[in-house]
């Protein structure tokens, strides 16, 4: 005997089908809106800026004349910044992740650190800018330099890298560690020879994604005093600098139509860089998944 009478079941069935259908349409709509916005943005930028994107735009310094203006110094600045930020945050982030996953166990300090790392990942980037200004620019006398900018961005992406590295380290099966310990490996040898090599692609994926976030950051660099007009190539870590987002921000605030186009062209270059970095991260992640 069915608990639910067939008549009652059929009555509800139609309504249930409709609900299912409506939910499906709603979800489809959500993804369409998201994608459409992205498409509109990309098309708008591409149409506006594509005529400006050429070799001389990339290899010229900024100029008072929009059609002569280029992004050489800003592009170089951005590249140097993310190299500094990437290296610093990689070393600190992986170190912190190894400590938390392999050494700390369940002690109080580790618990507090863990909660704070999660909180730090949510701190607005401008706050990091203020921190960088106080510590690197003023206290450590680095000035408004590439080093100060790079270190500030490193702090900004550090929590992301720690969390990504922790996940990668946690994904290494415990049986691998046991195998190492059982052969007389010390903790350090187990981590260095067995755990880190296996976690490496995961860590690298996290670092690339984090660095691509750093590359798009504007606010902290404005706070620590990045320049908007740099007619020279940065010649060392203590050199003053500009960066792509700063240059773009500056051009968009100019009244001339030519600078608007230059800004759009700059955005295209920045987007290409970011998308290729994200693609690289995806490729690395797939490689990792295929291997395990």
């Amino acid at each position, binding site marked *: 005997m069915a608990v639910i009478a067939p008549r009652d079941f059929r009555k509800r069935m139609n309504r249930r089908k409709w609900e299912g259908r409506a939910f499906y349409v709603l979800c489809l709509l959500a993804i369409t809106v998201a994608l459409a916005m992205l498409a509109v943005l990309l098309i708008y930028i591409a149409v506006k800026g594509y005529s400006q994107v050429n070799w001389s735009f990339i290899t010229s310094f900024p100029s008072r004349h929009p059609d002569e203006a280029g992004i050489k110094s800003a592009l170089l600045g951005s590249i140097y910044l993310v190299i500094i930020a990437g290296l610093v945050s990689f070393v600190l982030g992986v170190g912190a992740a190894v400590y938390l996953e392999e050494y700390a166990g369940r002690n109080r300090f580790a618990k507090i650190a863990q909660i704070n790392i999660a909180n730090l990942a949510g701190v607005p980037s401008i706050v990091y800018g203020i921190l960088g200004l106080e510590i690197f620019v003023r206290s450590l006398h680095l000035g408004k330099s590439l080093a100060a900018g790079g270190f500030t961005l490193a702090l900004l992406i550090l929590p992301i890298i720690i969390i990504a590295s922790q996940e990668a380290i946690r994904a290494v099966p415990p049986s691998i560690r046991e*195998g190492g310990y059982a052969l007389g490996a010390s903790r350090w*040898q187990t981590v260095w*020879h067995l755990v880190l090599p296996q976690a490496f692609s995961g860590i690298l994926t996290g670092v690339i994604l984090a660095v691509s976030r750093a590359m798009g950051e504007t606010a902290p660099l404005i706070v620590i005093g990045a320049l908007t007009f740099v007619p020279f190539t940065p010649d060392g870590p203590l050199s003053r600098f500009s960066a792509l987002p700063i240059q773009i921000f500056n051009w968009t605030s100019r009244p001339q139509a030519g600078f608007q186009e230059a800004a759009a062209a700059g955005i295209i270059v920045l987007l290409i860089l970011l998308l290729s970095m994200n693609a690289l991260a995806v490729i690395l992640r797939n490689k990792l998944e295929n291997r395990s």
Partner: protein
Amino acid sequence: MLQADPILQTKDLSVYYGANRVVTEVTLDVLRNRITAIIGPSGSGKSTLLRCFNRMNDLIPTFRLSGEVLFEGRNLYTPTVDPTEIRYQIGMVFQRPNPFPKSIFDNVAFGPRINGYNGNLADLVERSLQRAAIWDEVKDRLKSSALSLSGGQQQRLCIARTLAIEPTVILMDEPCSSLDPIATLAIEELMRELSEDYSIVIVTHNMQQAARVSNYTAFLMAEGDRVGQLIEFGESRQIFTNPQDERTEAYITGRFG
């Protein structure tokens, strides 16, 4: 008899994970150059007892023990003993083959390398693979990944990896539980050969296996809050044909477990 001296002993050994006692007052002698099997139903503390012999339990934060574990007469759990020093004299093979994601050669060479072996590494690797009866299958592809081997081959590779550090004792934690019958037979044959030079302790679920390969058998079980107590220990022939304790008899005749 000179050969029959105990290499590992436990005296009144109890093990706790947090507040739970998982091994209760076990006193046991493991004899040199013999195969000792530890049998018992699931959750009877077999693996935990085995892992006391190479201090693998140290990796579990809430682990604590009372009583003594002696290796060649020396207490393994005195503060002056470094677990890594123990583990290269007492090797371990795990339930599931756990080769490192490295080449076959590097898997075997790992232990000697980290322990500072400075003889001829290639010779040692070859010798170890031969002793583990896998050399003929892998000699032409030492550079390929260990993960490309079958489960049974991986387990023999793990045994070769353990032999490469030339331990005195080999602990095996259900080494055949994830293998098919043919691979299981190969490992059992290997154990018999190895027992000429090594002392072997094997935890197994499989009573036929214990009866086939071991010289001595320890039967553990849980009774109320006395988890992991040693019910009976003796020569395997006697345990399996003429057990002294009725609980042993009930277990080996398949009435529970």
